[in-house]
């Protein structure tokens, strides 16, 4: 299955679409890419070399347990009442190194890298993330069932929200 060019293209397109929707602030469409029970997880660093690895019992930068949690984040951003979100930073995501790692029935696991350049009140910053996805095919469409993001900076400059990741 790892040589399935059709699946590779489908996964790459989905990841590129996801980050395009973030960059273009089409948050409602971004949320639609996730399953209802999607987990969105950004672990914290526990040392210079290790992140936390059990989201239930350890600290995370973000740990949202369903799509409702992702909707909460967007509600706050779009409220225009969040100090850190007005004005909203501009971002450009550049996705690469997309690898389909495992396919089991309707479930697809993939990894990718992302460089995100953001620009706002604090000037420009370019930061990197490692993406680990689990996708699930429902009614023929591949959706994000889990996205784990390892944000490699651990001395953060300014707010870090879902569109920076």
């Amino acid at each position: 299955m790892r040589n399935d060019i059709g699946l590779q293209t489908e996964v790459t397109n989905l990841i590129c679409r996801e980050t395009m929707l973030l960059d273009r602030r089409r948050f409602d469409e971004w949320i639609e890419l996730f399953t209802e029970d999607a987990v969105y997880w950004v672990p914290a660093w526990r040392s210079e070399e290790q992140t936390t690895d059990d989201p239930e019992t350890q600290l995370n930068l973000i740990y949202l347990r369903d799509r409702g949690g992702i909707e909460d984040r967007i509600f706050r951003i779009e409220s225009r009442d969040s100090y850190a979100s007005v004005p909203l930073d501009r971002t450009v995501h550049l996705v690469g190194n997309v690898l389909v790692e495992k396919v089991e029935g309707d479930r697809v696991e993939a990894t990718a890298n992302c460089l995100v350049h953001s620009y706002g009140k604090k000037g420009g910053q370019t930061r990197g993330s490692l993406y680990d996805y689990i996708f699930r095919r429902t009614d023929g469409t591949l959706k994000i069932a889990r996205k784990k993001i390892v944000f490699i900076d651990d001395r953060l400059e300014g707010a870090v929200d879902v569109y920076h990741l």
Partner: protein
Amino acid sequence: MAGSFAAYVDDRPADKVFRVDRAIYLDDAVFAAEIANIFEATWQFVCHESQIPNHGDYFANHLGRQPIFVMRQQDGGIGGFVNACAHRGALLTPMKQGNAKTLTCRFHGWTYGSDGHCIRIKNEETGYDPARFRRTDYDLTRLPRVEAYRGFVFACLNPAAPALVEFLGEAARFLEFIAHQSADGMEVLPGSSTYVINGNWKLQSENAVDGYHVSTVHRVFGATVARREERPGYDGMMRTESGRIAGKVENGCYDLGGGHMVIWADRSPPDTSPLFEQKDRLERDYGAAKARWMLGRGRNLIVFPSLMINDFAATQIRTFRPIAADRTEVTIYCLAPRGESKSARYARLRKFEDFFLVSGMATADDVMALEDSQTGSRGRTARWGEFHRGLDSVVHGPDAAARDGKFNPVTSNNTWDQETLYHGFYRRWKALMTTEAIGAKEAAE
């Protein structure tokens, strides 16, 4: 020179005036004096004891600009050292936190025991005259003072400083309200976050106990969690107190003396707290009044100058380190009662993540507001920052709630919107900043 900083705090309560010159957030000379007279002269928080439980566990930090580390000793005590090899000054700890029975400098290989004694010098015999050279002259430099109170480890570069418990004064009571949350002690949970603010450290001290901003800056957080609580899975301990954020509960603030400050607010209701499962034990062991303070009221404490202990939706240790007049590095940890239930631990962590991180839904807003205050302060044609709100309602000494909690503040005030708690902070600041001989002053106190 030191006397010139006195004019930066305009403290005239009889005229209903309390204001500070915004130069204190901007001026490099003020910053340099703060490093010398405050951060390198008074007690500073280093770590929690749970972060160094075993012999050889070390934790690296800074006192002012000086890199230091503390290490658990063989006898169970805590040693504190300047984090620099006695040879040429390279840092000795490869990590912020770790375990090592001996520390070997990675530069030229000098080795130290956990007690700081120099125990090996690479090629000693070919470089030094054995008749004159004594290895013991090259032990690590000990920190003059290291003490712990209820699990909170502090260090001080001033040998004449008063005992830690004296320095803490009434703030000690509030550390107890945290430390007694578990019969087995508290523990720092795995994972932390560090962020840098383009703002002066005092803006962070102010913000940490600023009840007045909650109903504006965190209105959106309240709206977000109120909306969420209509969905399944956000009941019981997973609730966040939107009523508290809107300011619709009893609350207040205290100037605790010594520059320490605290705000408090009733939990709405108390069973949203992960600690609620221990209600019976707390009431039995500590009595209803103290249990009310531990469980029924959330608290934000500033231990002067730069340790915040927050116990509202979750429990947090926040420390901040001055980098420059307009740069502050903040590090936060989640502190939790050992042995709490799985569901309480889960709720505590999730509520911590909701609010406290710069990747969360509230602290990010605080940080940006704070940075705007730094930027606005550069408008030097407008000189003063106002802190006189609440001067008409201030109570000298304890109010009824303080008497219940058996602590004795310098002043009490009737809502957490008031600013009288900052008067103690800035009086302490002024006293330290206008003292030339810091050691003598501390000894006299």
